Each structure stands twice: as C-alpha cells, then as structure tokens.
C-alpha cells in the first residue's frame, strides 16, 4: 500500500518536471538567413539589423510601421508591423522580428530591439589613470 503511493508520487513528479521543462521550450526558432525565412511558410524569429539608408515609414493613421531589414549576408526584406514604432528603434544595434513571410513582405507580430549598453567598460589604462 505504501509502495503504491511512493510509485505513483514518483511518476507524477517525474512527468510534472518533464511537462514544466517542455512548457519553457518554444517551437519558434531563430533564423538569421533571410533566404530561408522567405522560403519557410511558418512563424519564425528573424534576426538582423535595420537598413539605415532606406528610411522607415510610420503611418500613424493606419498604425502601420514598416522598414527594411538586412541579415549578415546582406539580404534585405521589407518588414511590416501593425503597431507603433518601438521607442529605442533608431539606436538599436540589432532587431529581432517574430512573424511570417507572406506576399513579398515579412508580417511581424512583435519587434524586439537590442540596444548598445550605456555601461560600456573603459579600457584598463584609463581606469588606472582616472582618479575618482
């Protein structure tokens, strides 16, 4: 009788742990090659950087934000996002967009921006000479 509860409790804990682990996993994968993004017909996270030469367009009336994005090999694609521009978009080093490539545009459902840190370390020589 005792054994039954021990065994059952063990199974429950084991599968519960497995389930919690699986919940943290995500099916959406990161893709830094835009040629693959364009071929894939499902939701992906595309990583790249904003092409500064081609300006972004913010249509405030229809709440559509669009810009060009380039990956590390220089392939470009146009990203369309329903919503307002993220605050720190202009200073972003790299951009991660989640969405799907359809009809020649990348339809993003969310935009993540990665900004350069304010707290860059000084080099060691400077740190030694500067007295606080």
């Amino acid at each position, binding site marked *: 009788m005792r054994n039954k509860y021990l065994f059952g409790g063990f*199974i*429950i804990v084991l*599968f519960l742990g497995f*389930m919690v682990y*699986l919940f943290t*996993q*995500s*099916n959406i994968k990161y893709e830094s090659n835009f040629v693959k993004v364009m071929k894939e017909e*499902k939701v992906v996270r595309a990583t790249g950087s904003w092409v500064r030469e081609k300006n972004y367009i913010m249509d405030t009336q229809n709440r559509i934000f669009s810009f060009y994005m380039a990956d590390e090999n220089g392939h470009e694609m146009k990203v369309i996002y329903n919503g307002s521009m993220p605050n720190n978009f202009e200073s972003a080093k790299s951009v991660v967009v989640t969405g799907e490539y359809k009809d020649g545009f990348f339809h993003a459902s969310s935009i993540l921006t990665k900004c350069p840190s304010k707290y860059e370390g000084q080099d060691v020589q400077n740190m030694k000479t500067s007295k606080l």
Partner: protein
Amino acid sequence: MSSKAYALYKKDFYSELRTRYAINALVMFIIVAISVILFSIGNEKITQSLTSGLFWVVIFFSAMSGLARAFVSEEERGTSLTLHLIAAPSTIFSGKLLFNLILVFCMNIIIAILYAALFDSFIIKNFALFIVSFVLGNVGLATASTIIAAIISKAGAKGTLYPVLSFPILLPLILTAVQLTLLANQGASFGDAKFELAIVFCYDVIMLTGSYLLFDFVWKD
C-alpha cells in the same frame, strides 16, 4: 475488477439512455453555442487561431455542462452507499471514467464535424496530427473532469463549483490543445508539434496516476 467496472459502465449507459439527462444537456449546449458563434461572426473572415480557440471553448463548456453527472447522479439518487458496498474505489473510478470517455468522444466528434462543416477557416490539413492530438486531449479532459466530478459531488453548490474547480486544472491542457488544433489546421508536421504532443501526453499520465491515487481518499469520506 474489469468486469465489475464494465458492469458499472453498462449501468450508467442504460440509465443515461433512459433519462437522457447528460445527452440532452450536451446537445442543447453544443447547438446553442455554435449557432451563437456563427451568428456573431456573420460574414466576417476569422483567423485560424481564433477558430481553434473557439473550438476548445465549446468543448470546455459542454464538458462542464454534462460530465459532472457521473457522480452527482449517484449522490442525488442516494445510491453511492450501495456502490461503496459493491466494489473497490479504483473499480468504481474505472467504470465512471469509461463512461465519461465515451461521452467526451461522442461529444467532441460531433463538435469537430459541425466545426468542419460550418466554419470556413476550420480546415484540417494534417489529419493524422489532428486525430492524435484529439485523442490525447480527450483522454485528459475526461480523466480530469471525472476526478473533479467525484470531488464536488458531495459539496453544496455543485453547478458553480464544477467549472470553477476545473478551470485551473484543465488550463494547461486547453492551452496546448488549442495550439495543436491550430498546428493541425495549418498543416504542420509531427516534428513541428512534438513539444505540444509531449505536453498533452505528460498531462494525461499525471492525471491518470493522480486520480487513481487520490480517488481512494475522495471516495472513502
């Protein structure tokens, strides 16, 4: 043990055919819910993710309206003491679970057929994935609702307590099942849905072991 459980299932089945309480409640709920959704959508084009969400909303609430019957009816007729005498707790749970499983499967097959017939955006592209997720989801739904029905059958306000208690327990199942239905409708492969399938499988195993362990305490009173 299994013959006794089958006898209990048969008893429930015939008494259900005679009174048709659960069947009527389920059919009325399904018809009302789906027609309200259809009228409110009108000519609007709705997305696939919305349809698979609505699909599981209807399944959840129709399960809530029909499945509590298994144990509540025993309490209402005062036959639960007789059941105590006849069989072991695990046997009783097996019989009730079998009955609820059959009920859930019939109900959900009807809902799936109605959805496939009436909604433009509910097109199952990967049929095998849909069947597997459907079976796993239904087993989880039936097991969880059977043990919850046993817990609430002795309480006062059964009607309100049942959905309230079920919601947090069924939430992980419903969320994953919505994802799986969406993936099957988008035509994703088994490889794309392996995480979701594993989650639903784990949920089923946890619910089955948990309810067989805990039913002794629920039943012994």
